[in-house]
């Protein structure tokens, strides 16, 4: 799973969001590191929809246009959980190799 797809799925984890809502949420989640352009966002959304990981939730009128909201599917939730576990496991290994685990490291960091 690409970093962008991971962030988009994470943005939808706590509820449906519309296109720009996902862009803002991804920027916040990544602490400003990932700023999705609209073309990139819809490339990711199209791929995730094709893979059955997201689906349309509802449409709401806003300023004369319809905003379409997306939500995670059951498969999407499972895929995100698996990816999160994989990334967390990798992060644990990295922290262990850098000696960043345990009370000593915590004390040194503090």
């Amino acid at each position, binding site marked *: 799973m690409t970093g962008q797809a991971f962030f988009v799925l994470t943005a939808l984890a706590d509820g449906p969001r*519309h*296109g*720009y809502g996902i862009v803002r949420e991804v920027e916040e989640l990544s602490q400003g590191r990932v700023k999705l352009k609209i073309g990139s966002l819809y490339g990711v959304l199209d791929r995730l*929809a094709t893979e059955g990981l997201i689906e349309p939730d509802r449409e709401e009128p806003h300023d004369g246009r319809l905003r379409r909201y997306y939500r995670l599917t059951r498969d999407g939730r499972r895929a995100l959980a698996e990816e999160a576990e994989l990334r967390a496991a990798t992060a644990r290994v990295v922290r262990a190799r850098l000696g960043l685990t345990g009370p000593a490291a915590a004390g040194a960091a503090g």
Partner: protein
Amino acid sequence: MSGDLGLEQRYRRVLRLLPGYYRQRWEEDMVAAFLDSWLTGDPEDDDAILEFCKPTWPEVASVAGLAARLYLGAAGAPRRYFAWGQAVRRAVLAVMLVHAVLGLEVLVRTAWSRRLFGLPAPPASLVTLSPGGVWPTVYHVVNVAWIVVFVTLALGHYRTARVLAVLAIVPGLAALLQAQLTGIRPAPFGPWAWWVLFNLVPVAAMTAFHRDAPPAARLPWLLALPAGYLLVFGPLLALEATGSSAWLPDWPGLCCLLAALACLVHVPRAWSRQADGSGVWSLTLTLLGAVAGAYRIITLSDYWHDPHLIKVSLAELLMLAAAAALVAPDAARAQAATPASPLLPSLG
């Protein structure tokens, strides 16, 4: 007039880069998200934004990148775009194979001229690159780089292959510019045509190897490297070594004949209509034939002084056109449009 367009119309014009089936599915949503990203909620500011602002270049680039990925589609894309994507990927691999085989040939010549691996002394008729100097060294490095580009591409390391390919075409451009500036131009059009058609265009077309692209059949492509050398350059080297290479066509002519031969070999599959994926190969061969034909046509201008060479070149072109015409109908069938499947379930 573009000056009369508002932000929304300007963005919709950018979205025209995308295939129709994709616009039908996503355009309104993209426009809504795009305008959301600009508008502030303040009516006065928003009126000014809608009237005077334009989509930023990074935004346009993101749509162009998406368009390239969609037109050169992967599995799941409508049949036409998948066929084009596969054909372009195979054509790029084929051109990289040509570069790799040429690189292998340079290595063999160098090994032979230096009598490495116990090889006997080469005959005087064998042309070898004189060692030493900056350009010969760069030439050797670039040729080895093409072998690495081909192998990494066939193995699916697309990003590495792209970076190496971009680096590999730079020395060729530098050499051409140097020749242009110093007035050393034995054949004014041929080298430029080679660089554009066989370096710049295929490297740009490597865009087709995006993350959704299905992997190439590794083993057949990797085996094509030694096979291509043994079947094409082995005999050529032998003819040159025995001093009987005078009747051989020049390099553009050889490209035409090889492309024509590949088309003829493929004809039984293309005409059977039973073989799976034959249409994509027909499209690939048509693309390669077009590149070889364009190379031949451009290099004709280097032969205006010699009517005999012009006649030979036209005969090569004719053979290529006839062979390509035999697979062209199958290529056309491969890209016949089919409606896109509704991947997004409709609301309600």
